[in-house]
């Protein structure tokens, strides 16, 4: 059966926010800030970057944490501040908002493709997804594409990932949990 890809509503809203923003150059500039633990993924593609505004002469950047205890959040905030300063922006605030809670639905298609290239299975690389629970098997291997895989641990190198192993190519790999 052919599946028609549908963009989650939340992702569409994010995209509209960026498209209709009067400060496109700031969004583009912030694409340079990457997740320090997955350095191929920009904060926009990860879904952590929520909003960028310019009010009077102050730039306001809004980010949202992935997991409550994600230690990378402090680094992301610092990286944003360094980048803005380097680009001559002196007055800015970086605000953290908690609601609505971050979801992997905000991750862009480009981000998902970058994750796979980096060796991490993306949140939707699951056969027969039932709800958002991390499955015990059949997450698609980012190395060889096989779905003959098993979960080794519900937790992996960081809070946002689970550990799997491929039965065909034998490689272990991280799976970015769907939440």
């Amino acid at each position: 059966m052919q599946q028609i890809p549908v963009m989650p509503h939340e992702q569409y809203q994010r995209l509209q926010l960026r498209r209709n923003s009067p400060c496109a150059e700031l969004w583009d500039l912030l694409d340079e800030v990457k997740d320090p633990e997955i350095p191929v993924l920009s904060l926009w593609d990860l879904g952590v970057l929520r909003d960028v505004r310019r009010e009077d002469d102050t730039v306001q950047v809004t980010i949202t944490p992935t997991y409550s205890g994600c230690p990378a959040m402090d680094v992301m905030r610092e990286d944003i501040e360094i980048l803005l300063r380097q680009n001559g922006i002196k007055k800015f605030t970086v605000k953290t908002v908690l609601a609505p809670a971050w979801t992997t639905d905000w991750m862009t298609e480009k981000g998902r493709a970058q994750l796979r290239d980096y060796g991490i299975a993306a949140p939707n690389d699951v056969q027969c997804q039932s709800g958002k629970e991390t499955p015990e098997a059949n997450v698609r291997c980012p190395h060889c594409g096989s779905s003959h895989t098993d979960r080794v641990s519900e937790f992996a190198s960081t809070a946002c990932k689970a550990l799997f192993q491929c039965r065909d190519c034998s490689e272990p790999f991280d799976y970015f949990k769907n939440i």
Partner: protein
Amino acid sequence: MSTSQSSDHDSKQDLINYVLRLGDDALILGHRLSEWVSRGPFLEEDIALGNVALDYIGRSRMCYNYAAELSGEGKTEDDFAYLRDERQFQNFLINELPRGDFAYTIARQLFVDVFNKHYLSALLQSKDQTLAAIAAKGIKETQYHLRRSREWTLRLGDGTDESHQRMQTAIDELWGYTHEIFEHDDIEQRLIDAGIAVDAAAFQKQWLADVSAILAEATLTVPDAEWAVRGGREGYHTEHLSLLLTEMQFVYRAYPNAKW
């Protein structure tokens, strides 16, 4: 000062107190779990416990940051975590008990995870938007934690004679600490009336039913012991908390304002 101003002040103080309590529960349990790092029974479990600890410590930071913002005296999250003494911590006692053996840690997590599932679901409805937002983040993590503590309870309870015995011992030892988590004082009653805090008593029966079902499946027995220990919310603690704080706060107090 008019009456309305003074009641405003009181309700704000109530809220700060409540937020600190939730932060204390999360920080102390998170610290206990972090003690497993490098001591886990095997690598994956070591990492899992470290990750769960991070979720709790992250939650405590959200609470302390909110308390700092509310109190507006130039305080930071670190002041609450590192510069308060034992009697000022108001966490429930179950969170401060030593980590024990692996069965003990899993039994505690099961009790706390089932509790948090109901508690955070109720807190989602809080009229306080920040608390509702903290709950919305926490509930996703709690569901993940609960799945794991449930599976471990089944595996250990229905495992070998030794794993079964250790689980049963842990459950019996912890049971008396599960009563105070459903109780509240006047501060919380006022916040419950205002639609801000959670009345845990409302889901106590459901908690017992959930826990009993998991224990039965794991061939474990729900204790019928009638002892209960309480005092955490008033700042009366077991001797274990002071030792935990000594270790946790040492560096910050020895080198005030140190940065890295």
